[in-house]
């Protein structure tokens, strides 16, 4: 029994899932209808659906971020890339005579995604070819990217009236929010490609030791390119969803702080920032924890603005739990317990 428990606790997903369950319980107490999902007008409604839908952009970005972090990198530019993608899409739609035309929307989305590939390749170039530290390389695009987004929107908040585009953020498909479907597709694609092929192992090997993996024949540089490009691509998808949600491209605020939420999701999920090992399932749980936390703050009646304080508390707790110092202290404690138990048996 205790062996099973020990194995459970040792599982990297244990603490994140416990945290998620705790949050669910708090919600259930504060709001008994929490788990109720109803079908209204052929659309699914309920708190859980809301959590999934609002958490979709964070999850999508976090998937890309997980792979970047697995290579011992970090991508700070995702928020800026999201803003640029939204700005590009909206300005294209506004520039066309018929923003509601599905073809226009398709062109706008395609161009935005293509630009994100260029931005991702730029990050990849700085990291893989010039060998700049990832945090700094992506800091450049983080700083300059919002300026670029402002340039595209000419400093305005672009409001666009296009039902097909708006559906991206708030529409439903077979009763399920489209944003959730997109997130599921991105997640499944990333999981399948990295876990059903050797790609995931290559990514981890680059994260553990780039030089050794290169000598072992792994194309480290090419992989870094792929990973950063994928991350920017994910960021652009999330940016389009966020923009569609409000039907407006706001260069200053689209995706503000989302890089931090994404990193948080990855860290909560148990992927080490030191690189080398990653778990996409953990990231999924992490993203859910963050979004549930936000929802909990709302349902419990705490002013929503305090969310950031709670996020800070969660990061701190997770980091402290994952810390080697804590692990050492815990194992010492357990050893002392077992010693004491042994003595108890001897004397009785």
């Amino acid at each position: 029994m205790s062996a099973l428990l020990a194995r459970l606790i040792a599982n990297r997903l244990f603490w994140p899932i416990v945290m998620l369950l705790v949050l669910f319980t708090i919600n259930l107490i504060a709001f008994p209808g929490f788990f109720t999902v109803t079908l209204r007008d052929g659309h699914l409604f309920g708190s859980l659906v809301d959590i999934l839908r609002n958490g979709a952009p964070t999850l999508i970005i976090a998937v890309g971020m997980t792979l970047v972090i697995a290579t011992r990198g970090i991508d700070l530019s995702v928020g800026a890339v999201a803003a640029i993608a939204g700005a590009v899409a909206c300005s294209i739609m506004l520039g066309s005579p018929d923003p509601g035309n599905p073809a226009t929307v398709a062109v706008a989305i395609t161009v935005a995604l293509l630009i994100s590939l260029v931005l991702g390749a730029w990050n990849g170039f700085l990291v893989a070819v010039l060998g700049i530290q990832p945090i700094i390389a992506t800091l450049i695009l983080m700083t300059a990217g919002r300026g670029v987004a402002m340039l595209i929107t000419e400093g305005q908040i672009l409001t666009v009236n296009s039902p097909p585009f708006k559906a991206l953020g708030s529409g439903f498909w077979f009763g399920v929010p489209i944003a959730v479907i997109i997130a599921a597709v991105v997640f499944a694609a990333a999981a399948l490609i990295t876990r059903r092929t050797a790609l995931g192992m290559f990514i981890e090997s680059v994260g553990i030791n780039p030089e050794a993996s290169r000598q072992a024949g792994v194309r480290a540089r090419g992989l870094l390119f792929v990973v950063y490009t994928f991350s920017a691509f994910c960021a652009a998808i999330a940016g389009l969803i966020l923009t569609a949600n409000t039907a407006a491209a706001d260069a200053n605020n689209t995706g503000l702080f989302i890089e931090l939420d994404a990193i948080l999701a990855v860290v909560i999920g148990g992927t080490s920032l030191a690189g080398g090992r990653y778990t996409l399932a953990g990231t999924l749980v992490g993203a859910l924890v963050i979004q549930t936390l936000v929802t909990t703050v709302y349902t419990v009646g705490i002013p929503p603005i305090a969310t950031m304080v709670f996020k800070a508390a969660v990061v701190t707790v997770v980091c402290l739990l994952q810390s080697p110092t804590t692990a050492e202290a815990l194992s010492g404690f357990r050893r002392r317990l077992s010693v004491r138990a042994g003595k108890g048996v001897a004397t009785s």
Partner: protein
Amino acid sequence: MTKLLDAPERPTRTGGRGRGGPTGQAPRAGVVRSIRNLLTSPKYGPVTVTAVLFVAIFIIGGVRYRGFFSGQVLLNLFVDNAYLIVLAVGMTFVILTGGIDLSVGAVVALSGMIAASLLQTGWSPAAVIPLILVLTSVLGLLVGLMIHIFKVQPFIATLAAMFLARGLCYVISQSSISITDATFVQLAVARIPLGGNMSITPSVIIAVVAVAIAVWVLHATRFGRTVYAIGGSEQSGLLMGLPVARTKVLVYVISGFCSGLAGVLFTFYTLSGYPLTAIGTELDAIAAVVIGGTLLTGGYGFVLGSVLGVLVLGVIQTIITFEGTLSSWWTKIFIGALLLVFIILQKVLTARRR
């Protein structure tokens, strides 16, 4: 792939050709050699380039715009960026040890919020300012302990601090609180004449004092030497018996203190507290430190370099203001581009020396 693999060596090679190769003209002139040594030294190279860049931009500004070449324009760089100078001082300490502090912008905002809300309830500035400095130092201490004892990466620990500080801002108030306290208003409008129609603000003096103390601490105390030693190699520092633990924690306390002080100076500048102010200031501070020649991996750099970095950012802003037709968001793009140029420069310089 092989092409990509060769790429990083290229700057070194072309650089080598550019300066005539190690054998060719090198011994021809001592001056040329010493200039080259200066520029390729990881210690002085980037600072020298920044200084040259600053002078060049200032001259370009002077040639292009009437009234640019005045002492007051130069002094205004200090007046407008006093808080950023103080932030950059704290950030220099952190980056010198190879760490990073992402919380500074949020702490500036938090300090402003604390000041504004306490002054509103009738607290005396004599109590508010020390309280802010103590609180932000304690926050820095907690971050430092988290980094040292629990081995949390500086990036994540300061990220948590950033969330905490930004969240507390919103908890204090969601809207802007203006400051009407007499002392603060006086400090905000006070000008110290320097003769010839030139003047500075009290904030500039505080910033200059902070810089002076930082220079003294880094270059004349054991603590300063330990900071550089940790950046060079933490392992060696430990083996030498240096107080690595204490120093690493203290560096974050210093950064916290500087953020608090910068927050107070920022409040003098804006006379209000607003939860959304200073977003992205941590990036300005990091950019200033990097442009000022401090190596991001730690070990090399000067506080005065960071001050130069702030001035470069400031002069770009001034030029954009003078230009009038350029939108303010160009500043961000310029800062990004400059950051890139200087990081590549650092790469090239350090690669050559190896």
